[in-house]
């Protein structure tokens, strides 16, 4: 709604600054989210031994499943990175394609995770059955919820790219999204090491 446009540069400058602020602010937000995850990690570790003589990490965890999940998620981070690169070069079609790929890989991860949860519940390893499983389901579940939000976000971004093109607002939002996605990747690597690898080696 710029009326006179006497100094369009000023408005552009301000928008650019706002966009930079958003990236910085979102980064800070991710740090607070990391503390939430940190708390969940601490809880998991404290409760790890509380197995009520029932299911233990060794008897439950299927490392190959977790490994495939890891590969899927790491690859999705890669495709997400490529999407950002093509966006920079203005190749929006490729960006959308790469985002679709990212979405599919994220979907594979989520499907595997849900399958794992269900298989646990089937044999009675429910979150209600022990402190260890409560910690497990809440930590891994928290990551899963984040990932699901990321999936919805991705759909929105693809729609915006398709309808609006690479405006400053859209590219900024995509930057935030990619930060989020890489962040979830890092969290997952921690989960893989602390929950699965450390769990079975105890």
């Amino acid at each position, binding site marked *: *709604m*710029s*009326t*006179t446009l*006497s*100094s369009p540069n*000023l*408005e552009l400058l*301000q*928008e650019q*600054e*706002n966009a*930079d*602020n*958003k990236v*910085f*602010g979102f980064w*800070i*937000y991710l*740090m*607070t*989210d990391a*503390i*939430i995850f940190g*708390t*969940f990690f601490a*809880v998991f570790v*404290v*409760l790890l031994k*509380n*197995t*009520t*003589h029932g299911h233990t990490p060794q008897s439950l965890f299927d490392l190959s499943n977790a490994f495939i999940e890891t590969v899927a998620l790491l690859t999705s981070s890669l495709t997400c990175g490529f999407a950002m690169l093509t966006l920079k070069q203005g190749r929006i079609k490729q960006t959308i394609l790469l985002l679709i790929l990212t979405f599919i890989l994220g979907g594979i991860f989520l499907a595997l995770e849900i399958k794992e949860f269900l298989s646990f519940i089937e044999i009675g390893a429910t*979150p*209600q*059955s*022990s*402190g260890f499983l*409560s*910690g497990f*389901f*809440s930590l891994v579940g*928290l990551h899963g919820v984040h990932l699901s939000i990321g999936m*919805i976000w991705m759909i*929105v971004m693809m729609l*915006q790219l398709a*309808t*609006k093109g690479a405006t400053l*607002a859209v590219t900024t*939002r995509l930057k935030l999204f990619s930060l989020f996605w890489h962040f979830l990747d890092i969290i997952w690597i921690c989960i893989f090491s602390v929950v699965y690898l450390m769990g079975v080696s105890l």
Partner: protein
Amino acid sequence: MFGNLTIDSIPWNEPIPLAAFGVIILIVLAVLATITFTKRWGWLWTNWLTTTDHKKIGIIYIIVAIIMLIRGFADAIMMRTQLALASTGDQVGYLPPEHYDQIFSAHGVIMIFFMATPFIIGLMNIVVPLQVGKRDVAFPTLNAVSIWLTVAGAILINLSLGIGEFARTGWVAYAPLSEKLYSPSVGVDYYIWSLQVSGLGTTFAAINMFVTILRGRARGMKLFDMPLFTWSTLCTSVLIMAVFPILTATMILLALDRYLGFEIFTNTLGGGNQMMYVNLIWAWGHPEVYILILPAFGIYSEIVSTFSRKYLFGYKALVWAIIAILFMSLTVWLHHFFTMGAGVNVNAFFGITTMFIAIPTGVKVFNWLFTIYGGRVKMDVPMLWAIGFLILFVLGGMTGVMLAIPGVNYSVHNTEFVVAHFHNTIIPGVVFGVLAGYNFWFPKVFGFRLHKGWGYTTFWLWFIGFIVAFAPLYLAGFDGMPRRISQNVDLRYGPYLVVAWVGAVLIFFGIVAIIVQLFVSIAQRHKLQDVTGDPWDGRTLEWSIASPPPSYNFAVIPAVDEPDLFWKQKQEGTAYPENKQYQDIYMPKNTALGFVAGGVLAGLLSFTLVWSIWWLAIIFFGVAILLWIIDSFKDHEEICIPKEEVEKTDLAFLEKVKQFNMPQGGRE
């Protein structure tokens, strides 16, 4: 259909909460009716509900805080009355224990989350952009979301009065007492969701302040050129960002236990770990009290320097002391449960780290004293609050050091001594601080000062009231009176508790005086008008512009190279520069997102979660997300304020200043 919510959820046979709730409903209806009859809905919507102006959002925060101060105090006076009765005559009083337990829990939660925190954040919102020379906070829309989340949380906790009940667990809701097994009703759920909603708002507010300060400062303003209130806001934001996520996580986990039967904080064999809850809640809870006191320290610094008409003694030392306290406050949480069996070495460690905090705090007290010493002190209401603080807070700090000695702690733990100690730091520290700030910055926001006489009256009522109300509790605590009891109180505590009741009545009149001061000031606003925008002969940037400031604050953003820039300019005769290069200004547009998604929908969502009305909860959640998505498709729009208009407004202001013929600097 409606989850656990039935017509019997309303406490029909408990006259006291029912009547209180009825009164609240009547007041709300009266307000709504007034708005409707005066046809103010449109005005309310565009000017307040959808505003993104940091000053207006700050005002809303403070209105919420003052209303909640009244609500929290109503709880306090009920408790004092109960204890005065139960320790003198019939040993029973008028409140049944299960009701008393809700009252002290609600009082603690309301005072901390919905009185002190919003008051502080409101002042930050108003002052920080002005002090760093910015047109608004970094994320205006997020700011609107934050305030309405806070309001939603406040409304939710007050609903518990008439629909269901509140937690009986105390303000930190220790597990396993707060688990479903021991607290089967919705009380703890109200606790969880009101904290969750308002805590999210607080976290967003902190991120906003942090980015505003780090990336929005005026040209040339280095970190060590920032006024102390801005410094304390920066450090508080860091602290909020560091510990509120712990609270959020803890509440999620407690909710998982309660709603889905997880075994996280339970104390069953091989199940959860209740000590983990105690550790987590205090890992947040101790820094939380510093989140409240650091900004108050900032306020006192501004006031002491302004009214002593002198540079702060040891500006850098004050800043480093704040930073030191920020980090040290993260290392002391265990002092809240020395008696829970952590062992001698652990207790010794946390006792010592706690005592260390007294060092930077002492540094600050001496800096303020040395600032006053040798200054040309001009007494006014804000300064009086600051002096009252200096006198009383030192005492509260010393009893804190006493409590930090594990051996002493063992004997006074869980007694009224602890209650006296934390009120001694929180009332003269935080409450005096926000009231000082309220008197100090009120003219900046509204363009007229608050009435001085009523300001003094308020102070003396609070000051004396505080001493009378809490000094006896120190004694009762030494004599072993436990806290959180309501019946069969030993008769020998009777005299103490009656005196404490008298003190609370004095504070009651102190609160009445706040309201009277406000209305008297509004009535006399022409007499009390602040023409120049500089009613106190101020030192920092916010006093160099008009009161109230235009929506964009600064016509031209000044270059800054020291904290007391405006003061220096007045001394040198270079204040109010003319011939500025005016430019168009772009300001963010109003947005309904904060009010609708952050306020209405988040509020409804948390209410349905409290009562386990799942289908409605899903709908509200879905709609909120959908609104968010739709909003993101809209093009980002800004309002342009043409430079001619900016110039006209600014010249008119400069003209007024000139007419007032203000002698520059050191005016008496």
